[in-house]
């Protein structure tokens, strides 16, 4: 309980930072005023806080939480601590579908891109699952098939970006590197409504994840229908990840980092691990977005790239430690 409260406090501090920092910094007192008494605060502060920064920060936290949980699920199902939800082909499929829409139907992109990304993500996840099936799916085969499908879709993506109109490609690259710029309350509401039931489901099935992370024979001995459970968990993970990609573009490394951080705090039991991973993911992606907006201001680095910049050293440390054998 104490740990949960500490985590929530950290998240609150990060949210506060995200609101206060930016191209036009707002002093802490003024942030509080704009948050608590919007009617009396200066109009430009209220606009910056309520219309520009708060929805963006909330969206980053939501997407981060979803990615953290998706990563936890992926690592449990694949029984591999280095597995990442991107390996399920979700990022590749979403990127391909979204890029196609952005380049071919430039006018309608704002509304269609999230839908296309979600459809692409789910199609890719389904294809990888089907291709990995040989009387059941095995973790190692899924990883390899995911890599192959990812490369295939990557070739499609580079085909589109090599022949598209160059300014449209540049805009698409911004989306492809995972960015929260220009997100408003409508996006937040849509994402929250999609993610909430999925996060709840993941938490409800925490026991199943505990069993799946064990040796297959043990799980079966304890009465788990392993293949059905794997399929259900992969579906939840794919939906979580697909919804995040639809909201913010493909963001890597959060799904790899958050579960590890959470595991250090709560241990391997998923009932505690899933909320902790959600918190850790929210915190990480929020900090990545804040850092990206402020490191080389006025230029903004997309959150996805910042997450990769933070994630790579983390990953290096993880592999060096050598405790985790793949």
């Amino acid at each position: 309980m104490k740990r949960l409260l500490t985590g929530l406090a950290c998240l609150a501090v990060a949210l506060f930072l995200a609101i206060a920092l930016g191209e036009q910094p707002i002093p802490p007192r003024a942030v509080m005023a704009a948050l608590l008494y919007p009617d009396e605060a200066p109009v430009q502060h209220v606009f910056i806080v309520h219309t520009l920064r708060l929805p963006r920060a909330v969206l980053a936290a939501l997407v981060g939480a979803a990615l953290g949980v998706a990563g936890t699920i992926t690592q449990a199902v694949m029984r591999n601590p280095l597995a990442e939800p991107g390996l399920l082909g979700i990022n590749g499929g979403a990127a391909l579908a979204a890029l196609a829409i952005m380049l071919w139907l430039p006018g309608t992109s704002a509304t269609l891109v999230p839908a296309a990304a979600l459809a692409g993500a789910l199609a890719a996840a389904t294809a990888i699952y089907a291709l990995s099936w040989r009387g059941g799916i095995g973790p190692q085969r899924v990883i390899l098939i995911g890599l192959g499908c990812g490369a295939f879709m990557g070739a499609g993506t580079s085909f589109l970006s090599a022949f598209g109109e160059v300014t449209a490609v540049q805009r698409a690259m911004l989306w492809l590197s995972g960015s929260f710029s220009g997100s408003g309350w409508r996006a937040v509401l849509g994402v929250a409504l999609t993610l909430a039931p999925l996060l709840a489901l993941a938490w409800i099935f925490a026991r199943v994840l505990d069993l799946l992370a064990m040796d297959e024979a043990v799980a079966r001995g304890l009465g788990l229908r392993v293949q059905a459970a794997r399929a259900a968990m992969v579906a939840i993970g794919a939906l979580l990840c697909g919804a995040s990609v639809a909201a913010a573009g493909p963001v890597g490394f959060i799904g790899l980092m958050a579960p590890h951080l959470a595991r250090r705090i709560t241990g391997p039991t998923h009932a505690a691990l899933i909320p902790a991973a959600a918190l850790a993911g929210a915190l990480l992606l929020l900090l990545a977005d804040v850092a990206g907006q402020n490191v080389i201001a006025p230029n903004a680095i997309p959150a996805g790239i910042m997450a990769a910049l933070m994630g790579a050293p983390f990953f290096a440390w993880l592999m060096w430690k050598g405790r985790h054998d793949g």
Partner: protein
Amino acid sequence: MSPPRLALWLAGLAAACLLLALWSLGVGSLSLSPARVWAALVAETPSREALVITTVRAPRVMAALAVGAALASAGAIMQRILRNPLAEPGLLGINAGAAFAMVLTAVLTGTAPRGTLIPAAMAGAAAASVLVWALGSAGRRGATPLRLVLAGVIVASFLVSLTQALLIFNLAALDGTRLWTAGSLAGIQPQELASVLPWIAAGLLAALAALPGLEIMGLEDDAARGLGIDPARWRLIAAAIVVLLTGGAVALAGPLAFLGLIVPHAIRLASGAGFRALLPLCALGGAALTLAADTLPRALAGTDIPVGITLALIGAPIFLWLARRQGVPG
């Protein structure tokens, strides 16, 4: 593999390269049959056709052959040394390292990446291979195939997002590099080819010279030591050869994936060759495949699709088939 059979295979693949080259030299807005190409090449009086062939088309054909030979050989060497059927420059992040170093240099200095930035390509390839090996082999069980591939994929995805970060802020560099980052041989210049070719040739010759040692490195370390081979030293030699081959190929054609993976597997399956015969066969087979993949879209549809994309569209299904077929338990 018996010597006559090996000679037959080598001759067959070399002939395939030659025929493909004659065909490819005739493909383009001035369409020529292979016989006309041959006639133009051997004619004593230089014709307009001969001029087109030697100045515009020949550099591209030679680049395709060189890049294919380099990457397929690099893949064969890596699979042997790492005792890992999935090893290849693309999956293990070496391509991405070279490409990132070149894009970085191109953005900083305002030059075009292709052909001119060989030191950057070599340095990037070397740094990425050291990093992936260090990460993949740390730990109790060492560099298991899956672990190494995961390390390669994660390093590669990190480098690719860094490359993206560089290009987002620089429209001119994006326009100048996007064809090359997809892996393309279009519009290659003779001087670009000339500046890269010596490196690839050096890598190929070194690989041939090192064949006996590389073959022994396919055994367990203890067995290799018993045969008088120092594993650490030979791993370094192999890495240097792979860096020469990969860095050169990426400098010319961009990061081509899958070539190093599928060619050795296909040749091994088809011919049953052992490693010593495999390496030269792979060089010829990779050259032929790359040339075919580069020419086919232009010949069939008249559109110039980057060869990296064609190769990935061919290679990814073969990779999937390999992973399903032999593969991996569990």
